[in-house]
């Protein structure tokens, strides 16, 4: 039997307002094994932790139960406090009486009763706890950054500057990401390429950074400090070492009808291509689906014109296996598909475009060489309508429930730029709310209205209909005037919601990092650990975690880098001691556990055992505790109960069950 101390936290009024903490103390003090019980306003405070220290010493406690907030919040805090008191940190259990009790119940009697039961379950568990010792594992001093946009580039640069090797894996032929597609950036109106390109060059030139473009992550195994990653370098069909980037192949390529992804499909490109002029590396790839040589076997023009002899039709995908200590996910975003929004006529009219398409149109390297013109007939528009929140803030199944955050600002930017460059164009913006928190953001928006005469209408557009005269009939509401507006526009720009890049699901699965219902990667804690994934050693950079603008992305990229550096700076990590442990005398050697272990942590060996006097050689399971992550799949597969999980043992869980059901 343990000597258990129970500490009940008020959490100010967070717990105490609904749970009668005094009553909890009174009741649990009579539980078997409990020799100390007290309450305190803030157990997590230094003074609160001192309570634990003192009680452990005075009452010679062997186990501690803290009734407080979620263990996800302060389990580590209280384990450290116990350790300071000379107790094994794993002799601490948390009864979650805040998130699972006081915050969801209103009736005091009911909440108090439940708090007591939760405390009892924790006490019952601690009664069976055993001291556990964390092991150590090595840290590979190399980081992997998945995604080569501004987030990935910045993270890589920061890690590399700290002196660690970094690999960037980018699935497109060039790094640069979404930011390279933008024309100007708010609220300063800097040229996007002008500020991004130097970063790209810096990354490419950095001796600690190795960039795999046109590459994807194929497989991830291992765990924090010791990941093993297979990177698939897709066949470029161009030898990067030989290519000089002269561009002749692209000029001569006879297949020029592929949609240009970089320009959002608004124009076409050749089959052999670099996505944009400043691409890094400046080495083209052959789009094998479009290439005549690959399709028919005839052509070979590029090979003929290439002075450097860099064209290699026989190149194969290459798998590179590399070890990493930390992985940063920076997979970015895309705009949502608008197929479900018929009312905006996006699929019916070329003149209804998304904001990202407008960026390309406004860009000098874009499909119209930077001239604002209608894609249907090339005419200059006179009347432009911007529609905000297209697919954002939708609680129906068509769109996204969240605010995409960046649209208000870039729409103000677009409106302002158009009014600046083309003063004769009327710009109307339909908005639900204009959200401009951020330095100089509201000022920027007000300038669009006050100095550039952008017409902001509080209301939404219900319908956009192409008219026979080529114009678009926009039917919207003006809620302030309580009017319905009918407006003939030349172009309509949709502030389309953004969503995580589709590949993130696969990557999250490989990394066992959790993602939310919107496919954004989940952070370890929404406030306190915003750049870490709950999966140790995996960090989040940029929009893959949630919508954000460039400065925020860069800031988070830096934060993710610091977290990664903090990990890489360590030589060894302490491992989770809650690993599976076989009882050799009960083990049948049946191998069922090894079949379900996702980490290959279970092996079998023939071992001499002494089973109550019977000595024989048996085939018994062995667990490599460095590989075991403690999921417990093996424990349930084992029919004899030989395999158990430390910290979550069969008897501990059963004791909790019993305590709750009694």
């Amino acid at each position, binding site marked *: 039997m343990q000597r258990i101390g129970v500490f009940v936290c008020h959490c100010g009024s967070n717990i105490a307002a609904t749970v009668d903490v005094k009553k909890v103390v009174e009741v649990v003090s009579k539980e078997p094994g409990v020799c100390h019980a007290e309450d305190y306003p803030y157990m997590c405070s230094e003074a609160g932790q001192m309570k634990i220290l003192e009680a452990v010493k005075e009452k010679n406690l062997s186990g501690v139960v803290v009734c407080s907030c979620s263990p996800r919040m302060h389990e580590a805090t209280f384990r450290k406090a116990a350790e300071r008191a000379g107790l094994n940190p794993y002799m601490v259990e948390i009864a979650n009486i805040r998130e699972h009790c006081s915050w969801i119940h209103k009736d005091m009697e009911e909440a108090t009763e439940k708090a007591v039961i939760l405390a009892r379950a924790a006490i019952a568990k601690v009664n069976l706890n055993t001291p556990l010792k964390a092991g150590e594992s090595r840290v590979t001093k190399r980081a992997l950054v998945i995604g080569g946009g501004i987030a990935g580039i910045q993270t890589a640069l920061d890690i590399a500057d700290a002196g660690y090797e970094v690999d960037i894996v980018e699935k497109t032929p060039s790094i640069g990401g979404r930011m390279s597609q933008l024309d100007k950036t708010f609220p300063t109106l800097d040229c996007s390429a002008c500020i991004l390109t130097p970063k790209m060059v810096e990354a490419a030139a950095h001796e600690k950074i190795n960039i795999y473009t046109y590459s994807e992550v194929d497989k991830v195994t291992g765990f924090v400090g010791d990941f093993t990653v297979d990177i698939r370098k897709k066949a470029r069909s161009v030898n990067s070492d030989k290519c000089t980037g002269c561009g002749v192949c692209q000029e001569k390529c006879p297949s020029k009808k592929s949609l240009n992804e970089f320009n959002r499909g608004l124009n076409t490109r050749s089959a052999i291509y670099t996505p944009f002029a400043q691409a890094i590396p400046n080495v083209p790839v052959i789009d094998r689906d479009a290439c005549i040589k690959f399709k028919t076997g005839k052509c070979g023009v590029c090979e003929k014109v290439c002075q450097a002899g860099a064209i290699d039709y026989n190149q194969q995908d290459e798998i590179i296996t590399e070890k990493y200590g930390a992985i940063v996910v920076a997979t970015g975003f895309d705009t949502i598909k608008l197929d479900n929004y018929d009312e905006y006529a996006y699929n019916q009219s070329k003149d209804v475009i998304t904001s990202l398409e407008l960026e390309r149109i406004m860009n000098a390297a874009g499909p119209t060489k930077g001239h604002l013109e209608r894609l249907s007939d090339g005419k200059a528009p006179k009347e432009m309508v911007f529609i905000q929140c297209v697919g954002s803030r939708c609680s129906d199944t068509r769109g996204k429930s969240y605010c995409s955050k960046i649209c208000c600002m870039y729409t103000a930017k677009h409106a302002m730029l158009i009014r600046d460059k083309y003063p004769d164009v009327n710009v109307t913006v339909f908005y639900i709310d204009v959200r401009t928190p951020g330095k100089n953001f509201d000022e920027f928006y007000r300038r669009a209205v006050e100095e550039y005469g952008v017409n902001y209408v509080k209301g939404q557009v219900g319908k956009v209909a192409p008219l026979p005269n080529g114009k678009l009939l926009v039917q919207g509401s003006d809620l302030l005037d309580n009017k319905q507006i009918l407006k003939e526009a030349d172009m309509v720009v949709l502030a389309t919601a953004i969503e995580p890049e589709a590949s993130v699901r696969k990557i999250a699965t490989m990394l066992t990092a959790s993602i939310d219902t919107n496919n954004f990667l989940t952070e370890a804690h929404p406030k306190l650990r915003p750049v870490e994934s709950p999966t140790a050693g995996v960090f989040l950079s940029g929009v893959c975690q949630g919508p954000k603008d460039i400065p925020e992305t860069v800031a988070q990229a830096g934060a993710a880098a610091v977290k990664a550096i903090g990990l890489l700076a360590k030589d060894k990590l302490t491992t989770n001691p809650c690993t599976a442990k076989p009882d050799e005398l009960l083990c049948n050697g049946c191998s069922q556990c090894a079949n379900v272990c996702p980490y290959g942590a279970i092996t079998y060996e023939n071992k001499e055992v002494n089973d109550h006097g*019977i000595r024989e050689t048996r085939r018994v399971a062995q667990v490599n505790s460095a590989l075991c992550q403690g999921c417990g799949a093996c424990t349930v597969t084992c029919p004899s109960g030989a395999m158990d999980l430390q910290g979550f043992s069969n008897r501990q869980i059963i004791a909790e069950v019993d305590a709750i059901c*009694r």
Partner: protein
Amino acid sequence: MLKIAKTDLPALFQKIAETKDLYLPIRVADQVNFGVYTQDADVSLETLKTVKSPKDAFFPQSETLYTCNKTENKISITPEELQNKEFVVFGIKGCDVKGIEVLDKVFLSEPVDTFYKARRDHGILVALACNEPEESCFCKAFGIDCTDPKADVATWLVEDVLYWNPLTEKGSALTDAVKDLLSDADDSKVKEQQEKTKAIVEKLPYMNLSLEGWNGDVLTEKFDSPLWEELYQPCLACGTCTFVCPTCQCYDIKDYNTGNGVQRYRCWDSCMYSDFTMMAHGNNRNSQMQRFRQRFMHKLVYFPANNNGMYSCVGCGRCVEKCPASLNIVKVVKAFQKEGGDK
């Protein structure tokens, strides 16, 4: 000698059940075991051998001894009430009656088992003589006359009549209680049946099993025999033989945590089980051979050694019928005979 028509038996049972608990062979899901009489019970007196012996009536497979309840820091102990109501075990066979005699030796000698004693004091045995013994029976080997059971009341079922003969005070008292339903009879039919049955007994293959050489004095000789090593091999270490046996009396005492306290109960144990008599240091019989040997040594050597030569087997033959590996005490005895003969 008294009698009652077979058709009136339900009335008899009803009458007994009015004041007493009545246990008798009842068919449930195609198997006949002793159970408590209810009006819609499927009573089967024709069944020669119930799967389990009726020893449950006196020594249940599991019974609570006492209950500890915890309220705050106080623990209260409530002993289980002793049997205080009379009950009747109806239809028990001669061998099973003898089985209870064996249990008496164990539980009624000092220190007396109060739970058992209370049940014995309140239990009335109404035995039913056998008339169609089977090939697995060998009661005669233990001196039992299956046609003339010695109980509180002995009965015979001959054609459509149940003959009733009280043998003890308890038996007479019961007879008085149901005398309205009984009428006088002569015992000629009974005698006739007894003779017929005895003739069959003589023909049954196991009945004249010789137990020569099995007694309390042959301990080391039998214990050290190499035969055991061979005999135990097919044994699956299940507890079937012990749980169907009318004389096996080993039990274990265990606690059950009800959440609010503890129920201390005892339940049958089997010497065939690997954790039988498990102690802190481990197990004193750690191979199945030793456990297998224990069972037969106990029945045929240790028990007679301590009980004036009384074997703790009554030849009911249940183990013969039920052993999944077709092992049994007869095969063991015969194997030793053969070995002895060979020598």
